[in-house]
């Protein structure tokens, strides 16, 4: 059972980590675009 849970945990952590990174990058870009649009 521990092998199975290890495999599933690795998948969950990797996918979750990647999704969080995408969300963080998106947030940073949106605020950069908002700031640049306000300066125009």
């Amino acid at each position, binding site marked *: 059972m521990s092998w199975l849970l290890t495999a599933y945990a690795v998948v969950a952590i990797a996918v979750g980590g990647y999704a969080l990174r*995408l969300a963080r990058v998106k947030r940073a870009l949106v605020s950069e*675009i908002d700031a640049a649009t306000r300066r125009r």
Partner: protein
Amino acid sequence: MARRFGMVLDAALLVAMAAGFGMIFFYAPIESEMGIVQKIFYVHVPLAWNAFLGFAIVFFASFRYLATRDPKWDARALAAAEVGVLFTTLVLITGPIWAKPVWGIWWTWDARLTLTLVLWLIYVGYLMLRRYVDSPERRAVLSAVVGVTGFIDVPLVYFAIRWWRTQHPQPVIAGGEGSGLDPRMASTLWVCVAALTLLFIALYRRRLAIEALRARADALREEADAARAEGARS
């Protein structure tokens, strides 16, 4: 419209994930020889198939980029390559976690495993290449060439267990005579394939949206630089 589609997609993903996990733990039978560790199969195989899907998108988008020089195809290839590399990385991790208790070893240099590692290296190389080339046009052309030629390894990985004797198990889906799955295992696998395909699409769409935002941010930055230069001249 795109936002609504994204919400429907995310809801479908959650339902498919819940159904997949429910079926893995409460419906699919425990395999008689390997025991419960065989249930790694339900994520390992769909991850591999979706990685192939990702690299097929890279191939198609790269080909389209070379034909049209439209940056949208370059962005699509990049998004698919990144998610494809993530999925291949997970195939290369879940495989050895399954192999150790069953084969007694983490890894062996058989054709399927070695070609999968080569596949991962090709697309990690593709992503590295994108970091090292500064000119956007040159970067897009060079990576499109890698995206088209690198795809040759995908059919090799798929057919490796049919063409050569391997430590990796023989195919259970479309494997010909003597192959096959218990119907409960097969239905669980197809639900997991659907769930991981939805996951692939959800990650791909998010990654692609970032490329669109990055292009917009770059354009605004260039506009601001041009305005500053104009101001300095006058």
